[in-house]
């Protein structure tokens, strides 16, 4: 029997492979695609690596011509975090973006649930309205919002930023929550309703725990979008105490004398960190939710 074994294995390999004919050509194409994709990835990551490496250089060397620094230098980060302004900017960014994302998540979960489980007058109108809002960017609203905020004395406040952020996220949040809740079987809720639970109890105890991945996706995506927001904050905030990190970076760039590129790079790295970390941890949820928010009709 022994001599049969290698032959058997050979047959097995044949079976695992696809058709032997076009195999060679496919192989070349696969290799070419891998090479192209690796190239694209390097190109995409290049500015990010360039910035990280710049932030680790000693000061006043400018953006030197050697790519990898000779000595690693972390003082820029320490200097940044020990200035009075920068930690404050980070704190403001955190308050605004977390507050906005939290409200968005709760509000869109409730509305998403209503759109899935109830048929009510104006439901389809509401959904079309939401979809329109999903597409219309906030830019054209910023002028009247600025006027409104300045008339109400709300410029430079957490309140106006959290209100705007939470509202911007809602259309997208509803869309994602809707498709999540649609996948939850209805029987559980019906059983709870028979036992006399109120809709809020049903949502709180049955729907939300089951829809937790959706809630997490909405919360994290909105957190990242809010954290990265630059334009709204730039228009609404002008005092040092209230500015967010992105606006601080914009100011910093404009005041730059030319010798502090490394410090600016360090600021860039700190600001991009939360978004990147959250994305890397939850990338599947992110991609899935983004697709859902954009193309589900």
């Amino acid at each position: 029997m022994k001599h049969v074994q290698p032959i058997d294995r050979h047959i097995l390999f044949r079976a695992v492979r696809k058709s032997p004919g076009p195999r060679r050509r496919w192989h070349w194409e696969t290799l070419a695609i891998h090479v192209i994709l690796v190239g694209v990835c390097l190109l995409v990551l290049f500015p990010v690596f360039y910035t990280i490496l710049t932030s680790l250089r000693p000061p006043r060397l400018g953006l030197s011509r050697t790519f990898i620094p000779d000595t690693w230098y972390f003082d820029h980060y320490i200097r940044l975090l020990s200035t009075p302004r920068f930690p404050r900017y980070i704190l403001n960014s955190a308050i605004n973006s977390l507050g906005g994302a939290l409200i968005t998540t709760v509000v869109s979960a409730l509305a998403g649930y209503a759109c899935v489980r109830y048929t009510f007058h104006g439901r389809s109108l509401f959904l079309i309205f939401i979809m329109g809002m999903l597409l219309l960017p906030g830019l054209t609203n910023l002028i009247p919002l600025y006027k409104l905020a300045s008339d109400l004395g709300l410029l430079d406040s957490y309140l106006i930023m959290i209100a705007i952020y939470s509202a911007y996220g809602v259309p997208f949040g509803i869309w994602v929550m809707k498709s999540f809740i649609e996948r939850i079987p209805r029987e559980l809720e019906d059983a709870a309703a028979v036992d006399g639970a109120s809709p809020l109890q049903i949502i709180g105890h049955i729907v939300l725990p089951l829809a937790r991945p959706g809630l997490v996706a909405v919360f994290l995506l909105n957190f990242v979008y809010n954290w990265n927001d630059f334009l709204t904050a730039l228009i609404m905030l002008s005092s040092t105490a209230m500015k967010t990190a992105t606006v601080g970076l914009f100011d910093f760039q404009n005041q730059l004398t030319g010798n502090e590129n490394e410090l600016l790079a360090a600021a860039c790295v700190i600001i991009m960190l939360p978004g990147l970390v959250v994305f890397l941890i939850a990338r599947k949820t992110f991609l899935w939710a983004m697709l859902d928010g954009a193309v589900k009709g």
Partner: protein
Amino acid sequence: MRRCYPYLLIAPALGLISMVSLYPTLYSLYLSLHRIRRGTMEWVGLQNFRTILTSASFWQSLQHTLVFGVCFVSITLICAYALALMFNRKLALNGLYMTIIFVPWMLSDIVSGVMFRWLFLPHTGFGHQVLEALLGTSNLPGTPAGAMGIVIGATVWQATAFAMLLLLAGLQTVPREIYEAALIDGATRWQSFWYITWAFVRPTTMITTLFLTIQAINTTGMFLAITEGGPGRATEVLSLYMYREVITFFNFGSAAALSVIMFVLNAALATIYIRTLRAETV
């Protein structure tokens, strides 16, 4: 009471959206018909629109928006298509590649802007050095076309991943059996791309194009971060023009008129988008 529940549940969402979208839209329509000076408001009818539509700056910035939009949308679409076709092969490491390609999407406009500004900084920037070696001396940010080119590069870099995801979702709706049938019938690869893939993906392409067009009209952060409209006013697009009217000149009336014009543009595109989406899903 039972009939009230859904309305109670959507009320917070409706309230928030009305506050930052519906109300501002109406308010900007109202503002656009007034002249606002030091807190006083004076009805001027369509005067603001007349002023804008006859000003050279408006037409110039519209032209810049068009140039930017056409370049941005076409380049992004081509890159995204190429990537989507490659990802559709479902090769090993696809997840890793896709994660990396999405990194720019997760960065703030201002962070990306600072990075691209650096790359093309005269003398020291890495991209500048590469261009210098390839094309001889060049001061890219200093020339109108160069500055626009940098912004286009940065926005393509940022937006390609998402467009790719949309197109990939479209590509994956094509049933594999059709390709096998076409292969048996002796179709060439080009034929099977044109008559099968393209036929299936055309609506998605349309949607992606509209999506990118809306994004192109409203790109502001990247321009602010990289060029601030410069050199001179060579990269001042519509949105920057609007921003300047408010922040620099406090011309609320004309800025509101501008935002009404931009809103109409966006709403028209959004309507086509929703129509296409509905036609596709029905």
